């Protein structure tokens, strides 16, 4: 039980319950199950892409281009749907993922082969991909009436009262939980982040791991691109601007160490859910949406300070214990 309390994920979970309790005192309708499903719908895309971001941050990198590559893959399939409405939806999804994989692998190649630091690589590709969105759409929108019904309604199609969007995000979570925790490559990702040099001595290829995480993040982002434009029924050159920061925020709130080496999928999903709950709660208690950004910033700062302070205290406790038993 004490072990459980030490876990950041658990702290975050308790904190979320605390907020839910506090808000529901004022607005009981906050507790309706439909409201939680709304929050899940709102945070599904964020938590998916945040998992991609998590893998990159765990290796000690960062991906600033996710917002732009999401927009680029989303815009591509939206245009494809507009001009070739006959293409079946599963092809659209595959193409969207493929475009994302391609964009991610470009990042991966630049980081692993050309050895450009991830922050610089993705700063550059963020501009490039965003510019390409504009070139593709020539500054115009693809709006709801230009999309086919199947395309637009895909994220909303529901089964047992839960949308396909949520199913897809659960599928992503489960797949990557297995990948990160139960496969050799998954463990190697943590190994690289923990100690780059030591991991190379035990035979892990840093280049391979870097390439894999950027490409996988790209793939998730590609899928998210389709889901985004379909859900909001609009694709434009400003789609998902600043989204990269939200994904990083979800990671940081979820206890991922920005230095790499540690962080869990559950934490990140809770982090994304936490952000969703807070925004939802703000609307519920009639706080102007203009407060959202300031509160997001405050939460990020608060979360990283708490995480760091707790980490240091834990380390000290461990040291003290060791001294005691010696």
């Amino acid at each position, binding site marked *: 039980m004490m072990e459980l309390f030490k876990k950041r994920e658990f702290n975050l979970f308790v904190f979320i319950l605390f907020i839910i309790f506090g808000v529901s005192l004022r607005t009981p309708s906050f507790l309706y199950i439909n409201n939680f499903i709304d929050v899940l719908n709102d945070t599904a895309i964020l938590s998916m892409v945040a998992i991609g971001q998590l893998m990159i941050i765990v290796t000690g990198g960062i991906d600033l281009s996710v917002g732009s590559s999401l927009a680029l893959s989303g815009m591509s399939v939206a245009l494809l749907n507009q001009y070739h409405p006959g293409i079946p939806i599963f092809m659209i999804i595959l193409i969207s993922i493929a475009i994302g994989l391609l964009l991610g692998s470009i990042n991966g190649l630049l980081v692993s082969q050309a050895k450009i630091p991830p*922050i*610089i690589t993705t700063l550059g590709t963020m501009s*490039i991909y965003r*510019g390409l969105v504009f070139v593709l759409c020539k500054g115009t929108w693809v709006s709801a009436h230009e999309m086919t019904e199947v395309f637009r309604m895909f994220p909303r199609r529901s089964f047992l009262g839960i949308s396909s969007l949520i199913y897809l995000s659960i599928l992503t979570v489960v797949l990557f939980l297995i990948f990160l925790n139960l496969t050799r490559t998954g463990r190697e990702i943590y190994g690289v982040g923990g100690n780059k040099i030591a991991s190379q001595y035990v035979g892990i290829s840093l280049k391979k791991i870097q390439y894999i995480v950027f490409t996988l993040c790209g793939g998730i982002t590609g899928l998210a691109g389709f889901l985004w434009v379909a859900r909001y029924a609009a694709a434009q050159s400003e789609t998902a601007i600043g989204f990269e920061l939200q994904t990083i925020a979800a990671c940081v709130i979820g206890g991922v160490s920005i230095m790499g080496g540690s962080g869990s999928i559950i934490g990140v999903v809770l982090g994304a859910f936490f952000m969703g709950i807070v925004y939802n709660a703000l609307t519920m208690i009639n706080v*102007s949406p203009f407060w*959202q950004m*300031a509160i997001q910033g405050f939460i*990020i*700062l608060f979360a990283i300070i708490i995480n760091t302070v707790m980490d240091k205290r834990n380390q000290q406790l461990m040291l003290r214990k060791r001294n005691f038993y010696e």
Partner: protein
Amino acid sequence: MNNKNESLEIKKIRKNYLVNIIWQWEIILPFIFIMVVIINSNLSPYFLDYTNLMNTTFNFIEKAIIALPMMFVIICGDIDISVASIIALSSVFMGMASQAGVNTFGLVVIGLFAGLAAGFLNGFIITKFGIPAIAVTLGSMSLFRGIAYVILGDKAFTKYPTSFAFFGQGYIGNTMIPFELILFFILAIIFGIILHKTTIGRKVFAIGNNSTAARFSGIPVNRVRLAIFTVTGLCSGLASILLTSRIGSTRPNIASGWELEIITTVVLGGVAITGGKGNIFGVVISIFIIGFLKFGMGLINIPGKVMTIIIGLLLILAIMLPQLLERLKPKNSFGSRLMKRAVFKMKLKVGYEEEYKKRHNEIWPELKEELSRAGIYDYSIFLDKETLTLFAVQKLKENNTVEKLPSKEIMKKWWDYMQDIMETNPDNSPVITSLEEVFHMD
């Protein structure tokens, strides 16, 4: 013999040092700048117009003023992505004050102070809790701009005193030189002197190269970093004054996305994102390269969104190019890429294993000297006792003259001396079979 060799080695290193300087990014940048100017002036007749050039500096000098302290931040190995949000925050405070009737002097003080306080908050959290700068400034980036949104919502402050307009719109006297531009050059000189000519600058480089080592050598690492973040905030406040004065209004989305452009400028200027390396001239030239490039592209009607593609490509190429040059660059013979090896085998006659060893133990000094003069070093011969194969590996310097060796008197003498125990050609030289390299690892 050794001395001679060493002096040769030193000469070569010196030569390579000169080559290194020529390949340095800061030396390449001016040529890129000249290229940008030439291409632009060919594409549009309006580019090389004095008034136009002066006026276009308005578009990038505010960013340039933040790029100067950002350079210090990045050399320290940190990063600050909250600068654009600090601009918004201090612009909003100035707007509020102006609405309340504060005069121009008061507005400047408020603008600077808001920036200073925001920068101090960043630096304080980073150094006090030991959190990476990217995480902290990511949070404060949302927080600062968020506060601007909370205060302004969808409204805008547009009422500013007339005299406030000078900072962002004024020229020096009757010249067409903007006040901003002069201010930037003064600041660039100050920052340049601090970085390259004072102990503070040396400390910054030391922290960037190895912050632990810097701390153990008595540098107050955290205090220096705190000061740098505070100054970055102050300069963002200054940029906010200039920008607010220039456009005469404040909206919460003011200067959005600037942080990335500023970081791009600094990195393009040759500052290593990993810290520890950078030069003020590189950054200043890079500011003008990007500024004029955008101006030129604007003149030939390239949309802003397309410009971002070019700036992004430029950033990635700027980082890749020095690495590519590094690979092409000639290196000294130690572990050089241009280092060659000669690997071959020879055959020993039966029963002379010990004799061969003995003769090589007392190898003539003159021969050794001749071999090393020809550019051979790190020379080994191995013997396979089963087949009596002699296996030789020798490293050859770049400008070796091994092909001339057979004509040397001393070489011929050695071959004559050795011919009785080895398989030889008619001229007494040993029978040599060259071997193919099938695997290599550095």
